[in-house]
Structure formats: C-alpha cells, structure tokens
C-alpha cells in the first residue's frame, strides 16, 4: 500500500515538475538568431514534457513572424528576378516553412534541388 502511495505521489510530483530547460537547450540546439533571444522550449512547444512535444507547423512560425506576405515582403528586392524564396514562381506565398528551415538541425535549400542558387541566394538560416 505504501509503495503504491509513493509511486502515485512521485508520478504526480514529477508530472508537474519543470524539466531542466538549460540542459534541453544544449541537447536541442536552436538556430543562433533564436538562441540569442534566450527562448525556452515552451516559447514554441506546448507542455512540460519534452517527450510529448509535437513538431511545429508553419502557422506556429507565423505567430511570431507575422504572415507569409510579411515574410516575403522582407525579400522584395528578389522579386524582379523571381528569386524570392518566400514568393517564388513555383509556390507563391504557400510554401511550408519546413521545406527549407529547420530549428534543431541544419536547414536545407529546396531551390538548390533543381537550380544553382549561388548567385542569387545566401545560406538558408
């Protein structure tokens, strides 16, 4: 009976305990521009259990970054040559952020799958 009581109590206590965000931040490194903002995991993810964190959707990114149009407008100088990745000839404003950008691993360049982008695009942040 005592063991059962201790088990239930312990699970209840640890379920509400906050994880060590700093060690998690070392394990799941952020991109430098986000790291600089000193975000904890819960700035993007829901809940206290990292095992339960869901991958994000583009709409989660846009809750801070505004809208697909706002993001595209910041690269408006690339529009005349149709090289704005956020407003491309192929996808317009509808490209999913995660086609290129990744937070906990290196980002990729979708355009570079078919094009040589060295003269019209920098490194994907």
């Amino acid at each position: 009976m005592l063991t059962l009581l201790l088990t239930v109590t312990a699970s209840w206590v640890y379920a509400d305990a906050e994880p060590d965000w700093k060690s998690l931040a070392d394990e799941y490194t952020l991109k430098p521009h986000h790291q600089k903002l000193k975000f904890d995991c819960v700035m993007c993810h829901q809940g206290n259990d990292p095992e339960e964190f869901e991958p994000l959707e583009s709409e989660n990114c846009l809750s801070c970054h505004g809208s697909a149009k706002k993001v595209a407008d910041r690269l408006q100088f690339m529009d005349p040559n149709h090289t704005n990745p956020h407003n491309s000839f192929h996808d317009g404003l509808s490209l999913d952020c995660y086609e290129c950008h990744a937070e906990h691993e290196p980002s990729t360049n979708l355009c570079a799958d078919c094009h040589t982008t060295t003269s019209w695009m920098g490194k994907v942040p």
Partner: protein
Amino acid sequence: MNKKWFIVILLAIGGLLGTGASLVTAEIAHSTGDAAFCGSCHSMEPMANTFKLDVHGGNNSHGFVAQCVDCHLPQDSVVSYMLDKTKHGINDVFVENFTNTDEIDWIARREERERFVFDSGCLSCHQELLDRKDAENPKSLQTHAHYKNQLASGDPIQCVSCHVTVGHNGMLRSELNKRHPEYSFKSK
C-alpha cells in the same frame, strides 16, 4: 553701484543668457530629429524612405508620425539624450562630409540594431504594452512576458532583438539593395 546691485544684475544677465542658450539648444535639438532632417544626408536616404512606409513613419490611419530620434536616441533622461545626440551629431557630420559613406556595409550594420535602437524610446510611447492581459495576437503576451522575465533576471533582450524590421516596414534591406545588390542574379 554697490556690491549688492552688481550681484543682482550679474545674476539677471547670467540667467537671461543661460535661458537663451537653453532655448536655442532645445530648438536645435527639436529641429534636427525628424526624417526630413536625417534623410537630407545621402547615407540616410534609404532609412528615411523606408521609415515613411512604416506605421511609425506616418503610414497609419491616425496621422501619427514619430521622429527618428524617438527610437534612435535614449529617452530615459535628458542628460543621456543630449549626450548621445551630441556624440552622434559630431560623428555623423564628420563621417558624412569627410568619408565615403557608400563604403559602409549598411546591410550588415542592421545586425547591430541593438546598439542604435533604444528600448526606452519604444517604451516611452508603448507604456502599457508589457502589462497587457489580452492581445490580438496572444503570442505577443508570451513573448513580452519573456522580455520582462529576462529584464528581471538581469539578462535582458531588447525590443529590436525580436522586432528586427520595426520602423522601416521590413523594406530597408530591399531599399539598400538598390544601391548595393547582395546578389548578382546571373542565371544558370
């Protein structure tokens, strides 16, 4: 004239001169802080042009227009405001007239925004922003709470750490690219 009247007249003249000098200084400070003045220098034209596109620069339904110095000078005290204005004034006159400002990498310099945009400026207008309980975008409540926590813990971030394009409508990079293109766009 006895000594007492001499001191009274001296104080009156000193007071008048001091008041006059203060008024002239205030007038100069007031008339050298807006986009019309700052944008009259060649190097600041892109900044002034994009400021006018921004909600802070008049692109709003209320007709409100901020001044460049509202954000780019500290607003926490008159002393720090005047010291920074004097320092930047001397620097800017020298750099604009005696160096080639086209050689400055203005696009890269945007990364130093935390050095030349002051939270005291943002918060002198947005006074109750950090204490709001509801917002059109609920995410802003979370991020502004984070700002307050960082400030309280002695490890602050700044408004422009997140609001990276504020004041220039997200167009400054594109405007600067008109003078110095980042990419050659050679098709392959």
